[in-house]
Each structure stands twice: as C-alpha cells, then as structure tokens.
C-alpha cells in the first residue's frame, strides 16, 4: 500500500515559540486515523500541515507522494483541492448559499476533482451523497444553508468532503457541536460513506469515546511525539 501522507522527524514552529514535533507518521490509502489531544496540543496544526496550508519547519513531509519541500504554496493549494476533503468544527457552509451550491463548492476549485465525479451529473452525485449522509436531498437541495440545523450542516459538510472522490478526508472535531446521539450517528454515516468511496480519514477529536473503528490513533498529548519549548 502506498502512503498518502508520510512524515519523518517533522517539526513545525510558530513564531510565538510553539513547536509541534512528529517523529514518524503515515496514512495509507483507505486508512482511518484518529488524532487525540488536549486543547492547544497542535491537532489543528497537524491538519494544516497535512492539508498543505503550512509547510514543516524541518524534517520531511510528503503528501500524495510529493515532498512538500518541492512544492510551492500554489501547488500545495492545488494538491489540497484535488485530493483532500475538509470538514471543520463549525462554519463549514456559506450560510447564504443553497445546500446544493455548498456541496458543489467541493469541486469548484479543482478540475481534476470535478472530473472524478462519477455519477452521470453533478446534481445526481450531490443527491447521492446527501442521501448517503441521511439527508432528504429533494427538500434540502435548494434551501439556503443558514436554515439547516447544526447536525444537518455537519452532514452537508461531510457530503461535500466526499464529492469528487478525494483519497483523503480531514476532519477537525466535526462532532463537537453535536449532542451524543448525533455524534455517533454522524461518525457511523461518515465512516460508511468514506469506506465505500475508499477515502482515508484523518479525524481530529479530543473525545476518546469516538475512536472506535479507527485503524490508527495518534495522541498529541503523548510526550513522545510533541513537546513544548519555552522561548
């Protein structure tokens, strides 16, 4: 199996003195990886690195078999657009845009990803993905996103992350605003959908109860991978 993400001796420093160290880390195709850690431990920072928004200060990180050292930020943006579906903790959707527009946004900035849409048409694929996330596509499709419940919004965001078959989905605590019942429902739906599309998942949470069914668990609280430096 080829690794989608591979890091060795990766260090990322922020100007303020914060540093994230990851000696060794990789995500294989189709793998589900959970990242645990307390607030401020660097979970979101790790997603920034994997998403290609920032580059490691030292050490190596390769994304989709390309070393980030060799890539411009422009190329990193393109790589993310093509290969990574993103789900945030909140504010995933453009409130003024329709559900359809919000999902379609997933393939808006990458031609490669748009061409990977498998169903006969974009709207059919969006319908399929909304249904996979247990949403009533017909009634929701053309509603503005701000009229949706929080749980619905997160599932729409998941549908968008899956659109265009990206090999990797990164999710930054997408369930933290949901109640317990909704949390497990969201996890189940997301896992099922990404498994059937073959996407790997990098899932950040500080809630250890959610890590059932993950292939690999990285804990950033562990003093081994991270440490704090005083300036």
């Amino acid at each position: 199996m080829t690794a989608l993400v591979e890091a060795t001796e990766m260090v990322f420093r922020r100007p303020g003195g914060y540093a994230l160290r990851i000696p060794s880390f990789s995500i294989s195709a189709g793998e589900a990886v959970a990242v645990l850690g307390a607030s401020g431990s660097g979970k979101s920072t790790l997603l920034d690195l994997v998403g290609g928004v920032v580059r490691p200060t030292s050490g190596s990180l390769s994304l989709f078999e390309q070393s980030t050292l060799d890539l411009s930020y422009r190329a990193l943006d393109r790589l993310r657009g093509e290969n990574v579906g993103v789900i945030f903790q909140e504010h995933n959707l453009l409130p003024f845009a329709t559900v359809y527009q919000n999902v379609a946004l997933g393939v808006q900035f990458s031609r490669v990803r748009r061409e990977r849409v498998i169903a006969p048409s974009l709207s059919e694929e969006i319908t399929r993905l909304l249904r996979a996330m247990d949403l009533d596509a017909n009634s929701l499709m053309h509603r503005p996103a701000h009229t949706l419940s929080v749980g619905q919004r997160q599932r729409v965001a998941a549908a968008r992350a899956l659109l265009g078959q990206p090999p990797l989905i990164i999710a930054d605590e997408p369930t933290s605003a949901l109640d317990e019942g909704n949390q497990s429902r969201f996890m189940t739906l997301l896992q099922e959908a990404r498994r059937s599309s073959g996407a790997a998942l990098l899932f950040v949470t500080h809630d250890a109860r959610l890590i059932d069914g993950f292939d690999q668990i990285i804990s950033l609280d562990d003093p081994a991978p991270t440490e704090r430096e005083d300036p």
Partner: protein
Amino acid sequence: MMLGVTLRSMLGRKLSLAMTVLTLALSVALFMTIERLRVAVRDSFDGTISGVDVLVGARGSDLGLLLYTAFQIGDASPSMRWSSFLEVEQDDRVGWAVPISLGDSHRGYRVVATTSAYFDHVRTGRDRPLGFTAKNEALLNGFGVVLGAQVARTLGYQIGAAITVQHGLASAGDSSHKHQPFIVTGILEPTGTPNDYSLFVHIRAFEAIHEGWNGSVPSQGPDRHAGAEDRLAIDLSGPEFEPSRMTAVYVGLKSKRRIFQFIEDIEDRSRKEPLTGVLPGITLSHLWVLVGSAENALLIFSVLIVVVALAGQMTLLVATQDLRRREIAIYRAMGAQPMTIAGLLVTESAVIGVVAAVAGVVLTLLGTWLAGQVLGGYLKLDLNAFMLTTSQAQALVAFISVSVLAGLIPAVMAYRSSLQDGMRARF
C-alpha cells in the same frame, strides 16, 4: 456556479449593497446629466447658424449681437439701416445675404422676420439644411408664416391656421396685431436649435403690420378682412413695404478667404453707418472660454461626488471584509488560491460597478428627460434623452474601471488574510 454563489452572497448583503449601488448610481447620473447638458448646450449653440459665415449688425458688442440675433438671449440690439443691408447684399464678395428683424412674438415664441432665402441658406447642426415636415408653396409670400417644430407641436398648429403676432415678447397684453393674421404655410423639422422655438414671417409683412399698428397708413395697408388664400396672395413688393430698419444680416461669402477683409470693410468707420461683423464660430469659442471655468468647476464637483461614492463602495467592501473571512476560509479549504479569492472579490466590485453604471444610465436618461422638460424650452435645447454622448460613454468606462480598482483593495486584504488564515478563519 461561483457567479451564482457570489450573487447569493451579495443578495445576503442586499441592503448595504443596494445603498452603495444607489449612491454610486446617483453620483454617476449627476455627472452624466451635467455632461449631457454641457454638450447639448454647446452643440445647440455651435449648430444654430452653422451655414452663416458672417453676422452683420449695428455697431456694438459681437457677443451681444450674436446672442440676441441667433439665440434670443439678452437685450434687443440697436437696429441697422435697410440701406446698409442693401449695400452688404450688393457687395461683390457676398454670395447671399438674409435680413433678420426681431421684436415681435406669438404666445411667447419669437417671431423672426426674414425672407425665404433664410430656409435656403441657414444650416443647423453639422451643416444640415432646414427641412420641412409640412409646407405649401406660398411659404413667406404675403402673410405666410413658417413655424419651428416646437412651436407647431406645443401650440398644435397646422398648415392653414391663422395666427396673430404680438408686439414685444410679453405673452399677455393688448399690443397685438390682431387685425393682421398670418397663415401657417410651413412647419420646420426639429433642429435642436432656437429655430424650433421661432416663427418666421416675411420682413415685408412684418413691416406692413407695423405700419398698420402705427396707424400711419391704414388705408393703404393690405385688406384686413381677406381670407386665408387672399392673405397669402397679398402683394407686398411695393416700396411702401420696404423696411427702414432691421436687426441683422446673415451673410454667406463666395470665398471664405476674404472673410477678414470683408469684416474690416464692414466695420470701417468712414462708412455712412459703421457696422459690426461677427464670425459666429470664433465669437462662440470666446463665449466657451468665458463659461469654461464655471463648467469645469461644475464638472470637477460632480467628479468629486463620484469619487466620494466610490470611496463609500470601498469602505463597505473593507468593512464587511472581516465578516467574510469564514467564507474565504471555506474557499481556501476547497483548494482556492489566494489569487482566485482576490479575483472573486474584484468580480464582485465589477458587478457592483456595472449595476451602478446601468442604474446610473437609467437615472441619467430620466434626469435628461426631466431636464429636457424643465429646461429644454427655456434653453432652447434639443435634449434627446435616449442617447449617450461619447464623453458620457468614456466616463462610464472610467467609472467601471475605478469601481473595479476599488475592489482591488479589499481583494488584496483578502489575499493577505487568506495566506495567514489558511483553512481556518481566526477572529
């Protein structure tokens, strides 16, 4: 699709955007209406007597004579002798000479006493001859009167109508030549010049009614009770109808090269009656120099108003920028380049600019139409409302460009903050 998203995003901010667009549109309309009026005034003035080489009148101010004779502005000029007209007419260098006598009116419209040669030689606009929308052969024979387009339209006169003229320009009063009706024999095509607001009678008929009015030769005067046909057939060629004084002469020279020599001779102090020769184009250009600074001040003001409105647009875009960082973070997460995001914001400004420009044009047409209604008759302008001048079109293009440029500032801000924020909007 991104256009759809952008439009929805703008729809979500419709109130503030609508205010901005309205401000922009009003400023554009103000500017363009002023510009339109400026151009219309100039075109109208420059085009009023474009076929006339020299305007000859009694000794006095060039501008005063020109404004009074051709544009009905200012005080009556002193009159010149008929004999002087005959001298001018007989000058070798003169191709044609048309006498003009002013002073009477019909329901507020000026009566121009002249000869039929007026219609042959006076040009308007860019050398366009005067045309008729309706006429019968009599024209200025006898007591025939030809109406300017606007006069015919507003007063609803048609060929054959009998009208009376009045002494002076007052629209009321009893000093009318009631017993000497004129018969409408022609209606001119619209020209966008004072011609539209004038009535034309023969200078001899004009003389005849004034004789009658003076009461000096009533018995010899033409039959007051003649019918329409008869009034056109009245023979006014007798010496008793030769005017003694008149206002001015429109002159066309055989060769323009001798124009200055001709004027010098006309103005020669040793003549029996020294006259004034006016070159309409040159005298008008002096006028434009005089009014130019006022015009410029007005234009600068209206440009400043547009600038203020554009600053308002920029303020709005910058102020809402913080609120849009989430939106931008989402685009970034989907792989959008910072440049793409900057492009989206510029597109938005362009949309605002274009919508404001279109709304501005609509308001301008409305404004021009209103100005035409209110000022048209007063300034004797032809404000064709549904037309944009080149200078207006240029101004529009400039406006849209600046409006797009105004969008560059928030776009650059967005570019920077999106580099900083990455996929996460931080606030």
